[in-house]
């Protein structure tokens, strides 16, 4: 039972007991009052009987009329009192009736007695013995009757006394019973409360002390269903949770310790790494001549790496703010640097500029600076961090390279011009050699022996080959010098024109040339046709036993078109990848496959002029695929 319920029942029981005791005491009090009133009335009767007894004795001695009147008055009062008796129980009423009858008899006897006395007084003669005896006998009867009445009244008093005693006993027993019940209830309540409160609280106290000493394994083990039981179970539950949490915490601490040690190890390693990287960075910065810096735009404080200060040829104290930085710049660069800084700050843009820094030795160092803006919580620029790269040597190299390029371009032009001129100018003497050799052969036909004819044929053949080489070389040189401007070109049309030029070879070799839909690209149509012609021509020329199958395809890739020409020819060993695009380089003898060895070199030169690349994929015996790209 819960303690609150127990308290409730105890309170109800206590109130009930108090009410019962109060009612019993009230009832007993009323009963006592009633008994006292009855007793008082009966005592009054007894006193009146005693008075009658005294008066009777007086009358027997003196026969006084006044005493007679007194006797009659007392008897009347007693009779009236008896008629108004307070008793209700039949046996008590019967006793009262007996007393009343005796009093009546006493009245009769007294009347007889007084009659005898009056008769004696009236006769004025000596009283005879008969009357004297009668007087005494009546007096004796009267006396005995009064004693009997007294006994009856005493009996009534005794009954009343017993009533009072019984009432007292009943009240006492009832009060005792109620008090004992109350005491028992108090004891039971105290014992149960002791059991349910003090004992469990002591257990809890012990538990708290035990737990406080660090022993979390303690449990009250309470099974009580009251509030203390709930508290004890909550306490046990709390200890369970606490023990569990403590175990988890210990495990977590152990894990945390491991992690911390690991972290410390990592930090140590990272610190070493950072230190090493910092050193490397410093070395790298030194080697790269790259310094890092930060400018606190709010407080106008500049800090930087060691290389930064070295690049500026200034100490950190000297290069502490923007004004100091500005003072170190070449006066011609200050304005545009200031403009770039303001632009970066206002537009939150990338800071990127180049400027010259005056060195203490009077020299000038070329710096390329980059930086980014850091903003505060309100979005206002707060700082700028960035790098300074010493590009003095780069600038010098660039200038030198520019000059070299210019020289090279001029040399190339001169060389191309030379090749063109040489090729063109060599055409004439070569034609003369060939013409006159053929003329010699015609004029002296029959005069020359076979050997001479053979020699002349060799000379003519060499001149012809020489002429072909020169033409090819001329064509090759014209790619760079006589090329047309790049313009949108329908590659499908270009391929079609190429195939018409190759129609004889295609028909002769029974080749089958197919193609995808080809796009329009920016190209020199004639040069692009030259590429298709060389690649398809090679595919037919270097065919296998099978009939040649050539397929021209194109792929749209990021920023460029990638064309491919795939065949089923003899294939190429990949180890010759570097050779086949070199001019006049051949993988086969002229007897095996005719040609000058300039076709793929032309292709490479054309594609490079268009800004693209050319390569191939092949395996010997499994055909080849040549790729080239044209930028979009």
């Amino acid at each position: 039972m819960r303690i609150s319920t127990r308290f409730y029942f105890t309170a109800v029981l206590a109130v009930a007991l108090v009410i019962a005791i109060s009612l019993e005491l009230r009832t007993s009090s009323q009963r006592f009052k009633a008994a006292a009133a009855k007793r008082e009335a009966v005592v009054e009767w007894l006193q009146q009987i005693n008075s009658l007894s005294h008066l009777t004795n007086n009358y027997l001695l003196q026969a006084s009329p006044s005493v007679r009147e007194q006797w009659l008055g007392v008897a009347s009062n007693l009779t009236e009192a008896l008629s108004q008796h307070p008793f209700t129980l039949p046996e008590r009423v019967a006793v009262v009736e007996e007393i009343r009858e005796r009093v009546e008899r006493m009245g009769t006897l007294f009347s007889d007695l007084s009659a005898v006395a009056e008769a004696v007084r009236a006769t004025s003669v000596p009283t005879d013995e008969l009357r004297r005896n009668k007087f005494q006998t009546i007096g004796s009867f009267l006396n005995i009757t009064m004693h009997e009445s007294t006994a009856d009244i005493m009996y009534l008093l005794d009954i009343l006394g017993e009533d009072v005693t019984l009432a007292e006993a009943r009240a006492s027993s009832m009060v005792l019973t109620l008090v004992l019940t109350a005491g028992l209830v108090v004891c039971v309540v105290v014992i149960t409360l002791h059991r349910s409160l003090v004992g469990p609280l002591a257990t809890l106290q012990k538990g708290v002390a035990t737990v406080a000493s660090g022993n979390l394994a303690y449990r009250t083990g309470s099974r009580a269903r009251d509030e203390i039981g709930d508290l004890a179970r909550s306490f046990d539950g709390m200890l369970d949770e606490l023990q569990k949490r403590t175990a988890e915490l210990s495990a977590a601490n152990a894990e945390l310790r491991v992690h911390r040690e690991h972290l410390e190890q990592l930090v140590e390693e990272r610190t070493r790494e950072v230190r090493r990287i910092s050193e490397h960075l410093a070395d790298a910065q030194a080697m790269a001549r790259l310094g890092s810096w930060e400018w606190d735009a709010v407080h106008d404080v500049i800090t930087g790496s060691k290389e930064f200060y070295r690049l500026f040829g200034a100490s950190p104290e000297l290069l502490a703010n923007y004004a100091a930085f500005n003072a170190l710049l070449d006066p011609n660069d200050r304005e545009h640097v200031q403009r770039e800084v303001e632009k970066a700050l206002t537009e939150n843009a990338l800071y990127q500029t180049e400027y010259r820094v005056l060195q203490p030795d009077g020299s000038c160092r070329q710096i390329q600076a980059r930086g980014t803006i850091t903003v505060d919580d309100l979005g206002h620029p707060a700082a700028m961090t960035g790098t300074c790269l010493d590009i003095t040597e780069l600038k010098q190299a660039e200038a030198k390279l520019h000059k070299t390029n210019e020289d090279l371009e001029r040399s190339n032009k001169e060389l191309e011009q030379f090749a063109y001129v040489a090729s063109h100018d060599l055409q004439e003497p070569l034609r003369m050699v060939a013409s006159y050799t053929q003329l010699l052969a015609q004029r002296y036909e029959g005069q020359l022996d076979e050997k001479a004819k053979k020699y002349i044929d060799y000379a003519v053949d060499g001149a012809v080959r020489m002429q072909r080489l020169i033409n090819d070389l001329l064509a090759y040189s014209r790619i760079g010098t006589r090329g047309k401007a790049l313009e949108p070109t329908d590659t499908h049309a270009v391929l079609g024109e190429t195939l018409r030029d190759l129609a004889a070879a295609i028909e002769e070799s029974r080749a089958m040339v197919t193609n995808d839909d080809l796009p329009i690209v920016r190209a020199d149509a004639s040069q692009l046709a030259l590429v298709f012609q060389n690649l398809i021509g090679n595919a037919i020329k270097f065919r296998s036993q099978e009939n040649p199958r050539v397929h021209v395809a194109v792929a749209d890739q990021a920023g460029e078109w990638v064309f491919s020409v795939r065949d089923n020819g003899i294939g190429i060993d990949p180890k010759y990848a570097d050779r086949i695009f070199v001019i006049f380089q051949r993988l086969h003898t002229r007897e095996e496959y005719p040609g000058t060895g300039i076709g793929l070199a032309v292709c490479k030169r054309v594609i490079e002029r268009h800004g693209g690349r050319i390569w191939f994929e092949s395996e010997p015996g499994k055909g080849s695929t040549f790729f080239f790209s044209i930028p979009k």
Partner: protein
Amino acid sequence: MSSVSVSVSGWRKKVLWALLFTGFLVVATMVCLPALRQLLPERIPSGPARKLALGGSTAEYNGLIWLAEDKGLFKQQNLLITHTLFDTGAPAVKELLAGRLDIVLASEFAFIAQATQLPELVVLGSIAKVRTLQVVALRERGIGVPKDIRGKRIGVPLGTSAEYALENFLLLNDLPPDVITIVPMGPAAMEAGLRDGKVDAVIVWEPNVQRLRRMLGERLTAFPAQKDRETFWCLVTTETILSRKSQAIEGFLRALVATEILAASEPSALRAGLVRNTKEGPEFVDTIRPLLQFKVSLEQALLVAIEEEGRWMLARGGGAPTDYRARVRPGPMLAVKPSAVTIIDLRGRR
């Protein structure tokens, strides 16, 4: 350390609570013990039953004795009562003196008549008061009112209360004792005496009055002979028996006191006993019931009556001067029912 202090403290508290609870019970019991005694039934004496031989008659004054026997109240007192019947008190007293009886039920007159000669006799109290003595007269002899008995022959059982009552009857009716002729006659002979004309009237007690009425019917008239003076039926024993069987006698009185209370609450039971034992029928019982008072007492009135009758007896030349107060033994009655002792110098004693 804390757990040890808790357990010691708990042990001390338990002992303290046990002592307090025990003390409370003891005090409560002591306070309420008297009341409890009142409520508890009287302890029945243990051991073998105590024998008490009673001498009496079938007269109506034995009502309490019969009711006590009917209700087993003597057995409750562990008493074995034997009841021997006698016609009058004198032979019963002889048996008492012979040691064959322990208590005799006799009128105070019978006690006085024996006590003057037998100093061993003592009186313990009375259990009934009766007023059944009547003067029964033949109308045909000219007796219509009490004074008409002048010059008549009156049958009287001499040596009994009837003789004393007849003299008082004459006196209260202003008749000298010598105006009548007393014919000694026992109750059994009265009917014949009246019928044969030996006497004109008789003075006798119940149930003889009713028997005479039944036999002689309307020929008879009756006058109360003790209208103002009752006969006490006393418990008479000897000094020796009292000292030897005081506990049994107290138990006997205790049973009679309980019977008195029972008779007040169960009058029908008392009446049934009277009807059964008197063998006179219910009408007789109902007729005489107002003349009977069943009361266990030792009254001043008894003492006065004894002394009065003793003086009368002495004046007639019977007996010897006797200190009747000294023959009263109030001890058993005081032990059983103190309030029933109204002898003036013994009131309030226990």
